[in-house]
């Protein structure tokens, strides 16, 4: 999809929406309103936004344990997403899923997944569905660099490649796998290398540069939509927060984090790009940030006001009990 000024503004806004949503979620965690595992996406915004800016509403995405950003970039509503993190009845998943399972099926956001690499098979399966139906929908599977070691990565991509499915595999290589540095547990530096095992294109891009991500994905999405099969795109990125609550961050220095925040921040980088093209005035920038901030505040209010689910809710949605066949 061509990067117009209009699209760029939307992308810039989405990056802020993710950034501010995540920072607020973290604050709410501190307040005890959000509980459980909370894997924050700050620092990686250019990936979700660079990818989803190429997608139609009816395209599919599947996420990871770190998926608030994917959902928001694909169009999920902030209020219901926040309410889900709060475990409230108005959450996208009625409070039953939480951070690791946020999903909005109405937008073909199949959702976060608590199993590392758990989404690659199902994501590829949505592409199989599109192929059978001869629709021109495209599917995107997000996954972390750690996920690339799992067998399901290998099996899913093998089938995606075998049947030339309309799917784009997007690796968010943030250099960490929970509390360990990638280089201590991985055998190849770039996940894109692995594309060779599947005979599909593999490219590595700067995940802090939303334009670079957008363009690489644009090509891959077009290819997929034309029925020419999958691609593997690695975006090199970085996460600002710890893996999730309880991370002592012994595996990196504060300086390292500071360096990325200062010199490679995806929002700053994109702002500079837009300013250069005179696509963004200072005033517009302020407006975007203010509006986003207000959106987040409203989302928190919504989440706070939403009811705690009634305990009878725990017993529903196991299977569809209304369904019957006649003998």
């Amino acid at each position, binding site marked *: 999809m061509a990067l117009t000024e209009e699209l760029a503004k939307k992308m810039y806004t989405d990056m802020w929406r993710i950034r501010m949503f995540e920072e607020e979620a973290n604050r709410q965690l501190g307040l005890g309103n959000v509980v459980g595992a909370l894997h924050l996406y700050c620092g990686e915004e250019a990936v979700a936004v660079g990818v989803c800016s190429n997608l139609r509403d009816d395209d599919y995405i599947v996420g990871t344990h770190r998926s608030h950003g994917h959902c928001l970039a694909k169009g999920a509503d902030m209020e219901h997403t926040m309410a889900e993190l709060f475990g409230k009845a108005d959450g996208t998943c009625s409070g039953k899923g939480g951070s690791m399972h946020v*999903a909005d099926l109405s937008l073909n956001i199949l959702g976060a997944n608590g*199993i590392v690499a758990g989404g690659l*098979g199902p994501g590829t*399966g949505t592409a199989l569905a599109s192929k059978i139906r001869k629709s021109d929908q495209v599917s995107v599977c997000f996954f972390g660099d750690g996920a690339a070691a799992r067998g*399901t990565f290998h099996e899913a991509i*093998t*089938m995606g490649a075998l049947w030339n499915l309309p799917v784009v595999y997007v690796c968010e290589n943030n250099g960490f796998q929970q509390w360990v540095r990638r280089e201590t547990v991985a055998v190849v530096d770039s996940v894109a290398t692995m594309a060779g095992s599947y005979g599909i294109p593999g490219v590595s891009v700067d995940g802090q540069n939303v334009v670079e991500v957008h363009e690489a994905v644009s090509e891959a999405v077009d290819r997929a939509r034309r029925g020419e099969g999958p691609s593997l795109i690695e975006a090199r990125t970085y996460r600002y927060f710890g893996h999730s609550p309880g991370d002592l961050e012994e595996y990196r220095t504060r300086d390292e984090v500071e360096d990325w925040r200062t010199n490679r921040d995806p929002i700053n980088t994109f702002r500079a790009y837009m300013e250069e093209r005179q696509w963004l005035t200072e005033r517009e920038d302020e407006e975007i940030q203010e509006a986003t901030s207000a959106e987040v505040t409203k989302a928190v209010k919504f989440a706070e006001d939403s009811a705690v689910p009634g305990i009878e809710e725990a017993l529903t949605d196991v299977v569809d009990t209304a369904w019957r066949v006649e*003998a």
Partner: protein
Amino acid sequence: MSTITFRDALHSAIHEEMARDDSVFVIGEDVIAQGGPYTVTEGVVDKYPDRIFQTPIAEAGIVGLGVGAALAGMRPVVEIMYLDFITCAMDEVVNQAAKMRYMTGGQASVPIVIRLPCGLGRYVAAQHSQIMESWFMHVPGLQVVVPSTPKDAKGLLKTAVRSPDPVMFMEYKRIYTSEGEVPDEEFLIPFGEAEVKREGEDATVIGIGPMVGKSLEAGVLLEDDGFDIEVVDPRTLSPLDTDTICESVRKTGRAVVCEEDSSFAGTGAEIAAMIAESCFKDLQAPVIRVGMPHVPMPFAPSLADSVVPRVDDVVDAVRRVIA
């Protein structure tokens, strides 16, 4: 009515459902070649070449893709060549397929059928003879279906394909060639409805899969002892029709639960515990379980035949429960 084999019943169920609904498709290893090891998907490739996928050897991938296709509104019928290999895809079954509806607060539906040829076949030892229904029963969100006759096989598979939730469909290899009467017109069998396959007064025998046939045979032999047994076939283990089972046990006062799988923490454990709790006052003797001992399946035919429960074992158990 026509007399057909269990395999033919499955075969025609798949063909009928594929004709009826474009969203039904087949995926699995060797499902095109020879129509799969049990020829159940024979001919599908000719009629629906775009709706059958012969895969690499990658069970986790196969089930994973099936889950995704189902989430996208398709109705995959997955063949796992031997049930034993589903162990390679348990995350996909348990953490993905089974929980998706729940975790999304009811948004998602995963209408996937996983066909699982199981049990002792032609003596292929410990990694090719397992059953494990009790595993699937224990997982909320999974439906567990165990047909024992061609008629049930057809009616239950057609229902499974239409179900909005995942189905683990057990196919005992040794009964693929067994024959039975099947209606010629279209029919479905609802889940959660046990069938009383023989009426009797003296004891209730609950049979799972091939143990239904063996229990019926036992019923004939036991007539010589003057014992008239009732044979109940749950047909689906989850949901489990506790009403029909309990009604029978309340009538007879005695129950034997028979499965081919090993008893320890098996299917019979749930059924026996349920009966012992629900029918406590009516029970005149302890519920007896018949099953395989707690051992892997040995290779040697002599050994394998010695551990899989036989008609005699049912007869003995009934005698004990009545004695």
